[in-house]
């Protein structure tokens, strides 16, 4: 089963989506709308977002691409809900920068509170999986708590969704094809099998440091194949059997409007 949050006919709804793409509300009402209809506004799929953990350089080929040594332990940074936006929504490119790239990533959504979780039990703590696009603005990198918040924590820089797939429906999260297209052209073509630290490893690692809670998310990093994105570009991040996440880039002025 898949789970999403949408706005449909003026109502904000938590919905389930079955294998036949039928959309049902929590009250059991089946919505008379197709899954790809523009009448649906997609919200970020985690209803009460907690701490968002993101991994840097967690694919060996991406580490090479950025001229880094692969890390010996997970490189983790934190993001908050201000970065989240939904499927078919917009993200903005700041004025006057040279290089902003997408990062298509598998996301594990925590479903149960835990501390000191063993790797072999880790998936019991995962409610499901979704896809995010963990944008980065490389111009803003500084060597202090890198990647610093100015690079990664801007409003709208973490599109996520459209839905969460139950953990049970993904027998092996490390055997999934991962692709990104920009304006329909394939730019990233990887596989989650190439992750350096997989979800169970990261859950064991983080939960040795701190308690994980429902609504926390772990964004697991991106493989080789990042390119600059400009206002007007449409970016689609897809992970096999999970979902495809579409984002349209806009300018800073278009994003902030009156507050620009």
């Amino acid at each position, binding site marked *: 089963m898949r789970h999403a949050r949408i706005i449909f006919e003026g109502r904000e709804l938590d919905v389930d989506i079955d294998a036949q793409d039928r959309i049902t509300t929590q009250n059991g009402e089946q919505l008379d709308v197709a899954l790809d209809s523009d009448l649906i506004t997609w919200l970020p799929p985690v209803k009460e977002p907690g701490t968002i953990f993101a991994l840097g350089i967690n694919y060996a080929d991406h580490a090479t691409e950025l001229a880094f040594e692969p890390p010996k332990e997970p490189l983790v940074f934190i993001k908050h809900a201000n970065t989240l936006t939904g499927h078919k929504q917009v993200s903005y490119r700041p004025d006057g920068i040279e290089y902003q790239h997408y990062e298509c990533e598998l996301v594990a959504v925590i479903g149960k509170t835990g501390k000191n979780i063993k790797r072999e039990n880790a998936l019991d703590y995962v409610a499901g999986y979704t896809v995010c696009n963990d944008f980065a603005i490389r111009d*803003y990198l500084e060597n*202090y708590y890198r990647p610093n*918040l100015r690079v990664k924590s801007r409003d709208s820089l973490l599109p996520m969704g459209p839905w969460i797939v139950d953990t049970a429906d993904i027998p092996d999260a490390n055997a999934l094809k991962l692709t990104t297209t920009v304006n329909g052209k394939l730019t990233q073509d990887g596989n989650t099998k190439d992750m350096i630290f997989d979800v169970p490893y990261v859950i064991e690692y983080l939960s040795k440091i701190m308690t994980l*809670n429902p609504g926390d998310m772990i964004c697991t990093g991106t493989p080789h194949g990042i390119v600059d994105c400009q206002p007007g570009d449409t970016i689609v991040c897809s992970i096999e059997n999970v979902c495809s996440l579409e984002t349209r880039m806009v300018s800073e002025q278009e994003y902030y409007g009156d507050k620009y």
Partner: protein
Amino acid sequence: MTANSLVHSKLVCVALNDKAQLAALDATFHQDPYKKPPTQPVLYYKPRNTWSQEGAEVEWARDFDGNPVAAMVVGASLGVVIGKTTCRVSPQEALSHVGGYTVVADYSLPEQNYYRPDIKGKCLDTSAPVGPKIIPAAEIANPDALSISITVNGSVKSVFKLSQMQRSVAELISIISSIMTLQPGEVIAVGFAGNRVPVAKGDKVAASIEGIGTLTNTLGGA
């Protein structure tokens, strides 16, 4: 995660905002891996599992083998509590977006380097008490004129004048609000004395700002 935390949705901390600390580390910050001193505020989050309150015990951290860590430290900061949605405000208008002020304590492992996000050092459960209460912004004419002290078991270990901050409260609100839209109840810990105070198991720690209050917590593990 403490249900009664005064923090709503986000606690942003500013590291390396003590002028004396920046001066002392200047040579280090010209070398690898830093290469040059920071040009922007150095920010980190204390995530929700860290949030705690006045009077609460702070857990003594354990290492990856499950043994109690050898050393912990504490820093204290003025906590700026956002009063209304704050998006891309100028320094001139920044203080009008403050709802109130409080005290933030940041318990952590000793700060050893600033190159990578310090998840292992900073994200410890119950390590960010905030309180004891929120003083309305109208009662504080100039937040940059305040001074914050830390006492451990009754003896003063640190005094930090906020006039020694590299960036003022208003500048920080302006810069942070141009990275992220801030919401009511979110808290910014604007600056800590560069020399964090060592603490031991069982210590009673008081972080105090005149006119704001005293935040008292006890280290666990004794």
